[in-house]
């Protein structure tokens, strides 16, 4: 293959890898902007991935799978909200509890229901997965030099959820900076007391934020099990929830920079896949373990070195309680 074809294919893979990251990171953005640490992204995504795959396998409908995935993530989000907002529990501990619970519960239920060693059945029936949408003339355009290839591989050929995630970035920015809800959301993460004295319910806002996070995590999880792959396998999120959180911090809790961070992480991931077994000049073939560690090593480096100035929402992690 020609070099630029390789590059374009790597970029296309980047978009696919970035989608669940971006959805989860934006989910985290809503939650964290309201002052609730969203360490439960991982668990909510994993729960949604399982539910979506299971329902899709049984009903044969990816859309019902999506509904189940979203419902599951919303339920987990509500559970977290109940613990952290209503009862002012420790947000980190509660989220980790959910993560651990889901990590065990998914495979257990899968084993009980499908008897396939903790997986869901392969989703290969028609309509069981979100398939790639091929835009008009994509096949023909592929042969028309670089612009055609870009059109065919980068713009066309992704599942609906990828486009949804892309559209979500400007939409989130608009909601956050141009609407009443966004103003209140940003305020409640900075100074909940100011929001309370302004006559707005702090807990109400935080529940809304946490539910939005649940919704988006549901879509992200559904993408993992019914679009990016064909079924649920144990631990299929593989730390993407935490990576999304890192992207959110790297993106300073803002939609566009967060998109950039997600793309960067996804690119290293796509690159890592490409580089497996490839002999590079000077260094030769890099052992696959090193390559696979690349995105995570990059995360550590970036978070250590480049986001020193990132200022978290001031009230993050602090449950709101009136004095006395």
């Amino acid at each position: 293959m020609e070099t630029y074809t390789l590059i374009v294919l790597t970029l296309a893979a980047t978009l696919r890898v970035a989608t669940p990251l971006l959805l989860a990171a934006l989910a985290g953005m809503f939650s964290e902007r309201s002052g609730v640490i969203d360490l439960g992204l991982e668990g909510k995504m994993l729960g949604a991935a399982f539910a979506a795959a299971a329902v899709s396998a049984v009903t044969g409908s990816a859309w019902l799978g999506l509904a189940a995935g979203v419902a599951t993530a919303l339920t987990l989000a509500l559970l977290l909200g109940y613990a952290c907002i209503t009862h002012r529990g420790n947000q980190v501990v509660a989220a980790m509890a959910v993560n651990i619970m889901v990590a065990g519960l998914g495979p257990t239920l899968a084993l009980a229901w499908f008897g396939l060693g903790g997986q869901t059945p392969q989703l290969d029936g028609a309509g069981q997965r979100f398939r790639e949408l091929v835009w008009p003339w994509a096949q023909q355009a592929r042969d028309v030099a670089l612009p055609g290839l870009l059109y065919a591989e980068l713009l066309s050929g992704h599942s609906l959820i990828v486009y949804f995630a892309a559209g979500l970035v400007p939409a989130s920015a608009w909601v956050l900076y141009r609407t009443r809800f966004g103003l209140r959301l940003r305020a409640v993460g900075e100074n909940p007391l100011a929001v309370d004295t302004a006559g707005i319910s702090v807990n109400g806002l935080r529940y809304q934020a946490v539910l939005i996070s649940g919704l988006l995590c549901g879509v992200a999880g559904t993408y993992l099990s019914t679009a990016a792959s064909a079924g649920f396998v144990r631990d299929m999120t593989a730390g993407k929830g935490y990576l999304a959180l890192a992207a959110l911090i790297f993106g300073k809790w803002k939609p566009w920079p967060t998109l950039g961070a997600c793309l960067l992480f996804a690119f290293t991931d796509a690159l890592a896949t490409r580089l497996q077994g490839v002999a590079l000049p000077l260094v030769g073939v890099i052992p696959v373990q090193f390559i696979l560690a690349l995105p995570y090593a990059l995360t550590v480096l970036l978070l250590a070195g480049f986001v020193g100035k990132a200022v978290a929402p001031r009230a993050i992690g602090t449950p709101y309680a009136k004095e006395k």
Partner: protein
Amino acid sequence: MNRAPGVPALELRGIDKRFGAVHANRGVDFSVAAGSVHGLIGENGAGKSTLMNIVYGFHRADAGEMLIHGRRVDIHAPHAAIAAGIGMVHQHFMLVENFTVLENVILGVERGARLAASLAHAREELKKLAHDYGLEVPLDAMVSELPVGVQQRVEILKALYRGAEILILDEPTAVLTPQEAAQLFQLLGRLREQGKAVIFVTHKLREIMAVTDRVTVMRQGAVVAEVATAETSVRELAEKMVGRAVLLQVEKGPAQPGAARLAVQDLEVRDRRGVARVKGVSFEVRAGEIVGIAGVAGNGQSELLEALAGIVASSRGEIRLNGCDLVREELDARARRGLGLAHVPEDRLRMGVVAAFSAQANAILGYHDRPAYNRGLLLDRTAILAGCEKKMAGYDVRPPDPELRLASFSGGNQQKLVLAREIDADPSVLLVGQPTRGVDIGAIEFIHRQLVALRDAGKAVLLVSVELEEILGLADRILVMNCGEIVGEVASADATEEKLGLMMAGVRGEGHA
């Protein structure tokens, strides 16, 4: 709203509130007329804040009723208070710091789901309000970039924008410079002219005398007096607040200064960004005298005090304690304590105590490695307990319970315990910052007496305070700081508030001109 003349803007009848065992409000009757400024005073814990929080819907009263312009209202939450025309400016501003002024103003009273229309509308309204009340603020500036006095105006604008007819100001001058306070008082006058009912909550009696029409005094949850300001005096109000006669002026004889204990030469302190906050100051504190450092907050006094105590490093100059150069010897805060330099920090909760620890643990902080409190590798718990009990008895710390968490004590009692800890170590020099910040008037008197007694025992005391009265009452010599420099020195006998005020504003005085 049609208003019958003579009907108060706000009337509270028989408000009662308990928090567990604490009876915070005992059948409080309170009323404020429209077009007046009404003072509400009382010591910390007298129930002023609880009462105002009930009015603002933060707390619900257990019993009693509330009338606005003669109509019964049920204020169960802040939004109900706002709807009823009540606005409150809290002591700690309720502003979102990384929002613009405009965004802060519309928060909670947006018009519609999209912001653009709300922002445009608020901009117009605020221009009108700014004109009516002379309340100019930069609408598009980030709140965090505004001086505290301007932030307070934003809070007042917020309340007015919400249509407040009754405005509660909780300790509004605590964070202001004298000049900013004067501006605030002018503003209160304009609010009164516009027919607003202003409730001015404070414990500073002179402010009550300066701006209010009537004043209500609370003590231990109950109203003990309600008088016209013109018919009362500072002394009478102080007595009603405390429940006994109070010495407003500290009794002290002339100082008999001895040898220099603390000598500072050309000291410079830079902050983290490298900006010089203390610019080459030189002075001495001698045994048997109290030297006061006056100045508007933020003019380098805090940095000076911290550099002397060894908490921050100085970048130039020397600090001699009984002849030993602390800077050259590179002595840290602990070593300086060991040499007899005690420090009561300005910000008690941040530097003076650990609020979550018990009183007895706090009573040894910084001295916990002294042999008196240790037995081999372990702390000597009996000695610590006994030591704390002794300090509590000697300094009238209430309740005298060494096991109680420090956070449960009032500000005054916390401060007395810190003072006891530092003085008990028998220092030769005591550095004191804002000794009576957040302290009740009764405890202030006690703390002042202790400082004078320490002086009379031949110790050197360096007092930093933004309360001019405190400096004037206690210090034997007064140094005035402005922009990191000592701009003048006055003997306390010659000092007047006017003279010091000029120097605080940067006009050079005698001695250092």
